């Protein structure tokens, strides 16, 4: 048979589509498209507003803003180094503590745990990620701080007090507390993403290693090695979260603007100083300096997140939903 298909004519009384129906689809598509586009508009507006607000501070201090250590609202002179330092130290400490815990959990779940244990623990790990940060803050303040003050920090001072890292007075709140709270907050990110990345590496790699006489641990090492770029992505994503975390850190870090070598000393991060001082920033330049910190924080986390997500997507061959959800 050849030729075009013929459409049989509808019988006389058959229901017909309204003439406008075909345009409804088009309008629906465009309407939703516009809503999706709105996301880009919102991001662009945020960048524009922050950059505009930071303008006076940028003009007044230039690059010196990032290296200056003076933060003096009375004299209207602002340098953000103590906060950059605080963010770096608290996040760095968090990563140092969270990496072994998160990666160890991921390896256990992906490679060794029985299916039911994997399901149960993965569920709890994801749950951990959904706890509001204020709850972590309260825990840090009322549970962790007394524990650090009465037990951990005196012990550290007694045994490792010769290191500048552990000198000073055991306040309970400070860099150490912030680092521990942040570590617990980012473990789910590292653990669940790394688990997924390990599950995405081909089982044939482990088989090849085992067939060559590798032990279970050696075969797993091959898989972890293959997953390294993705795991690095997970770690950077977690770092991005730690860098930007505000509420919990503000509650437990002690809010001092001094740079101290000691982890026991109180400090501040970029996020925490904004939260603390925004409501009382009366001068125009004071407000602008805080907004400039926000700009730096925004740029930093944006770059880290973009880079990390690309790594994770690449490592999981685009299969990971978590790269978008974390």
């Amino acid at each position, binding site marked *: 048979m050849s030729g075009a298909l013929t459409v049989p004519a509808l019988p006389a009384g058959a229901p017909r589509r309204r003439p406008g129906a075909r345009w409804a689809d088009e309008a629906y598509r465009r309407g939703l498209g516009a809503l999706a586009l709105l996301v880009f508009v919102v991001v662009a507006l945020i960048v524009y507003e922050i950059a505009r607000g930071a303008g006076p501070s940028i003009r007044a201090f230039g690059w010196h803003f990032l290296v200056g250590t003076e933060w003096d609202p009375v004299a209207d002179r602002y340098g953000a180094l103590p906060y950059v330092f605080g963010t770096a130290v608290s996040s760095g400490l968090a990563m140092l503590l969270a990496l072994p815990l998160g990666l160890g959990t991921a390896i256990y779940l992906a490679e060794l745990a029985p299916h039911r244990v994997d399901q149960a623990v993965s569920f709890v790990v994801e749950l951990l990620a959904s706890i509001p940060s204020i709850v972590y803050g309260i825990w840090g303040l009322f549970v962790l701080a007394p524990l650090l003050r009465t037990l951990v920090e005196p012990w550290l001072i007694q045994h490792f007090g010769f290191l500048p890292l552990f000198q000073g007075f055991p306040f309970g709140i400070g860099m150490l507390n912030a680092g521990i709270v942040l570590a617990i907050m980012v473990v789910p990110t590292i653990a669940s993403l790394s688990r997924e990345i390990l599950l995405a590496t081909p089982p*044939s790699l482990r*088989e090849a*290693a085992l*067939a060559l006489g590798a032990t279970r641990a050696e075969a797993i090492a091959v898989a972890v090695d293959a997953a390294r770029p993705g795991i690095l992505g997970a770690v950077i994503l977690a770092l991005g979260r730690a860098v930007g975390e505000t509420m919990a850190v503000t509650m437990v870090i002690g809010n001092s603007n001094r740079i101290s070598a000691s982890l026991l000393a109180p400090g501040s991060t970029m996020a925490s100083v904004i939260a603390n001082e925004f409501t009382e920033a009366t001068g125009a330049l004071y407000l602008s300096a805080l907004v400039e910190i926000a700009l730096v924080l925004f740029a930093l986390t944006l770059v880290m997140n973009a880079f990390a997500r690309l790594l994770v997507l690449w490592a999981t061959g685009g299969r990971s939903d978590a790269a978008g959800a974390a």
Partner: protein
Amino acid sequence: MKPEIRIRTHDFDLFYGAHHALKSVSLEVPANSVTAIIGPSGCGKSTLLRSFNRMNDLIPGVRVRGRVELSGLDVYAPGTDVVELRRHVGMVFQRANPFPKSIFENVAYGLRLLGVNRRAELEARVETSLRRAALWEEVRDRLGRSALALSGGQQQRLCIARALAVEPEVVLMDEPASALDPTATARVEELVLELKSRYTIVVVTHNMQQAARISDTTAFMMVGELVEVGETRSLFTRPRQKLTEDYITGRFG
């Protein structure tokens, strides 16, 4: 003179949970020759192959009964060191599975597991293995490059080189050419013929022509049972079993 037997199974049964995958298989694999295992999909030929180096242990719920001997060693005895066993049995898989490392490090991997770390020794043994796998001339000037950049056929020969590097007695190949194009398949087949003077080779294949071309002994399996085993030429020309005849003449499978 009767040839030396490298692998011997005796009344060997294997169960995946309730599924009886291998039924009382008794097979002898002569040393320094190529033995092909053929049969329709799901007949248990890969399972049997993976029983020789206990790769089935990885699957939860596997039980075995009966004996497998490799050079006289009781493979499933409680005291057998599986890691040690696998060092004597090389394995090549259906899909080339090089590690995401350099060509050199792929071949050196098994040696490093054995504690070989001297650069000169590694280099010598990597070269020997790559030569035996007929890959040396193609990769000698790019050993540091990623193995994943090689073609599919080269990757499979690299996997063979990797298996040979630790000097196994036996090389097990699980449909080693099924994912390759005809040219690459021909190269792998030539290689198998070259290797049999040194190693005992067992090849699982669903390709009967391939079995006829490369093997000395052929074993035919169906639904978990070893139907017939014999010298390849006679099995293909004068099969003793009706089932074998039906299969090789293409009446099913």
